[in-house]
């Protein structure tokens, strides 16, 4: 009791006497940015995970890439590579590296040298070579590079000198540079890796990260927060905030509430219903851009009866996409006909679409031997994504549509980590999920979502494998001629419309909501959020 009394007396004196000036208070509160993110990252290395959560927390905060996308034009611009050259046969890429790029100095590691060619070799070989000492660390799966087949296509990565690197491909790949600029192609520190290996604790590389990015890692409490500090020796002269904190807040309504009270300075994925509120508040800012994404309904094609294209077609005809767009996206999305959004250069305007036709759906179902009363599961992902802001609500709507054609639906959901684990194991009948592209290249949609190689890497939610489809995709990559590539993707769309392993539903706009005090915020249509160069002024 006496201790409590002491504390109370202390409190009283502090509150009455220690009233500090507003200036002090402001200086403190504007020293750091609070970002309310939607979920916890799997680890701190985006090479190992394709989820937007992981790359938001890492890619542009902790790391740099050889190349970057210009946020305005989408063109590839220099980053850690100050210049590059492509040979005439399109198989050899040479990169000139920037000098004097410092790695983070943290409590757990002090670097002795700056960034050089060894780090590039280490970073690429880690996902490329199964024999690399770090390949199997943290699971040994590199979903982005596996699903796109990049790992197999790189023949060699050579160190020309300390600041020049040469990459050789086996086959031409017109999307290779774009892939090196995505969130996942980050540059790690070889010196740190060697240090950890010597200590016998290599897994730490993905949990206590060292990079060259504008912020360095300070601490992480799972499912609560991530703390970063400014990287004072950052090579770009952008003034960033002293501190950056990711406050992990899974509920979207809570994130908005915290944005309004100023407990967050920026939030991830504002819900579509909330956009008008944000627009109407003078203290909040809402940036929007058409997104490179697609939300879809995927059938597990390895489970009967969903291995039958007619059943899938019937289900596709049983739902009214326009209603889903209105109710779930509140018209902040465009109707998806194929996998590609309008923003992509390969978008096919006259692609075939499945119309709402319950009569046809019912007939197809009966022909396929599905009697009324058949029960299936729809998995609704537990978190909001721009491509599907409310999967549970969408599932309830679809439940009703399928009820009309005599199918009972059980809606299944788990927390995000468990959800994805079970999806990878193929326990679902169908799932409402989607895909945000990492760059504007169409291959970035078609290959990870439906190619055979994407089944083990866990991005092919339909578990669908079709040789003709894979052949077409490979053929498209062999030419630099956009018109020819586009013609091939038209064939791909026709094939998908016959087979319907997934029903594309919507391409959502991308939104970024933040408080007016944040200066320098920019929406990045190609990948994850960037806080480098962002400051707060109260």
């Amino acid at each position, binding site marked *: 009791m006496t201790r409590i009394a002491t504390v109370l007396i202390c409190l009283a004196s502090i509150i009455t006497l220690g009233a500090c000036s507003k200036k002090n208070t402001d200086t403190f509160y504007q020293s750091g940015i609070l970002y309310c993110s939607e979920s916890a990252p799997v680890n701190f290395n985006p090479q190992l995970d394709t989820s937007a959560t992981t790359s938001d927390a890492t890619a542009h905060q902790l790391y740099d890439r050889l190349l970057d996308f210009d946020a305005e034009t989408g063109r590839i611009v220099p980053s850690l590579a100050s210049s590059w050259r492509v040979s005439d046969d399109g198989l050899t890429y040479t990169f000139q590296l920037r000098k004097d790029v410092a790695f983070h100095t943290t409590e757990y590691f002090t670097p002795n040298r700056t960034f050089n060619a060894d780090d590039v070799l280490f970073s690429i070989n880690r996902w490329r070579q199964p024999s690399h000492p770090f390949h199997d660390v943290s699971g040994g799966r590199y979903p982005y590079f596996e699903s796109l087949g990049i790992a197999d296509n790189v023949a060699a990565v050579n160190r020309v000198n300390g600041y020049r690197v040469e990459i050789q491909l086996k086959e031409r790949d017109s999307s290779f540079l774009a892939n090196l600029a995505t969130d996942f192609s980050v540059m790690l520190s070889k010196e740190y890796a060697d240090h950890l290996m010597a200590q016998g604790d290599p897994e730490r590389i993905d949990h206590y990260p060292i990079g060259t990015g504008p912020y360095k890692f300070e601490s992480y409490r799972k499912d609560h927060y991530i703390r970063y500090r400014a990287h004072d020796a950052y090579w770009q002269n952008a003034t960033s905030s002293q501190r950056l904190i990711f406050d992990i807040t899974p509920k979207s309504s809570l994130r908005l509430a915290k944005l309004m009270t100023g407990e967050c300075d920026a939030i991830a994925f504002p*819900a579509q219903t909330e956009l008008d509120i944000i627009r109407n508040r003078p203290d909040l800012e809402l940036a929007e851009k058409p997104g490179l994404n697609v939300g879809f309904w995927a059938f597990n094609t390895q489970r009967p009866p969903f291995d039958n294209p007619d059943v899938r077609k019937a289900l596709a005809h049983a739902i009214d996409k326009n209603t889903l767009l209105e109710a779930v996206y509140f018209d902040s999305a465009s109707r998806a006909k194929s996998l590609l959004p309008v923003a992509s250069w390969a978008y096919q305007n006259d692609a075939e679409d499945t119309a709402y036709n319950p009569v046809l759906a019912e007939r197809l179902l009966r022909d396929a031997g599905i009697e009324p009363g058949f029960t299936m599961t729809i998995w609704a992902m537990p978190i909001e994504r721009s491509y599907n802001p409310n999967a549970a609500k969408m599932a309830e709507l679809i439940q009703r549509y399928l009820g009309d054609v005599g199918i009972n639906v059980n809606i299944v959901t788990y927390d995000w980590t468990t959800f994805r684990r079970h999806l990878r194991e193929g326990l679902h009948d169908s799932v409402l999920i989607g895909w945000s592209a990492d760059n504007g290249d169409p291959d970035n949609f078609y290959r990870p979502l439906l190619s055979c190689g994407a089944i083990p890497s866990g991005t092919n939610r339909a578990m669908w494998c079709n040789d003709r489809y894979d052949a077409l995709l490979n053929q498209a990559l062999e030419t630099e001629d956009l018109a020819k590539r586009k013609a091939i993707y038209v064939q791909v769309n026709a094939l998908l419309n016959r087979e319907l392993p997934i029903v594309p539903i919507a391409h959502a706009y991308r939104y970024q909501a933040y408080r007016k005090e944040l200066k320098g915020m920019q929406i990045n249509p190609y990948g994850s959020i960037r806080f480098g160069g962002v400051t707060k002024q109260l």
Partner: protein
Amino acid sequence: MAQFSLYEEEYHPSPWQRTWREFTSSHIAVLGLFVLAIFLVFALFAPLIAPYDPLQQNIDSLLLPPSWETNGSISHLFGTDALGRDVFSRIIYGCRVTFGSSILLVMIAMGVGVTIGTVAGMMSGVRSSIMNHLLDALMAIPTLLIAIIIVAILGTGLVNSMWAITLALIPQFIHYTRSFVRSEMKKEYILASKLDGASAWQLFRHSILPNMIEMLVVQGSLALSIAVIDVSALGFLNLGAQPPLPELGAILADGLDVAYLAPWNVGLPGLSIFLMVLAINLVGDGLRSALRKRVSH
């Protein structure tokens, strides 16, 4: 002019009539009873009262404001929710689910509790002492905790959450029944019956139970208000009733996502729970003070 009674017979109201008279002298308790009656009518005749199917979604009328707001319409008295369902109908059905299940589980808990409590009260010695201590200790475990454990074992659902709340309510009934029976067993009229050769069952049926009913009504009203709060709290935490089942707590949780945009989706279901609990408490309180006054007069 004073009227003389021809016979020397006085009018003796029965104890229940006297309680009722005391009860009705408190206006606020009568008001509570009236509100409670409305909720009971809602629960019994939900399908007749509700203007819409509570699950009927309507895409054309999402988040309509309630009728008293400027752009509300009379066709949806309490407005609609994020899926276009009529909030008024959902609340009516919600009252049915929440109130109905609460009454049901209080009756079960009462049945079980009274049985065990009576047995414990009529027995004496070591067995009853151990049971008393343990029960007292277990009474302290929060319902929420029991519910979490049951949900972990059996999965979510209204019925499972009802089991949890029933389990949590039983010890109270045991406790009060046991104390009551023990004090009653010491009284002389019980001794008289015993000497008359009444069996334990007869003792209970004819001597103890009739005296216990008042205590049970009071405890039941207390338990009912706890049950309503617990059922809705578990529904709210998504551990009890699962959507789309309209249960007031679950409706409230549904409205949470649009709380700022459409506050009536949070305000009205919450208000219904609050009024329901308040009415139960008012009636319970009125009953208790009526009984108290009757005894003291």
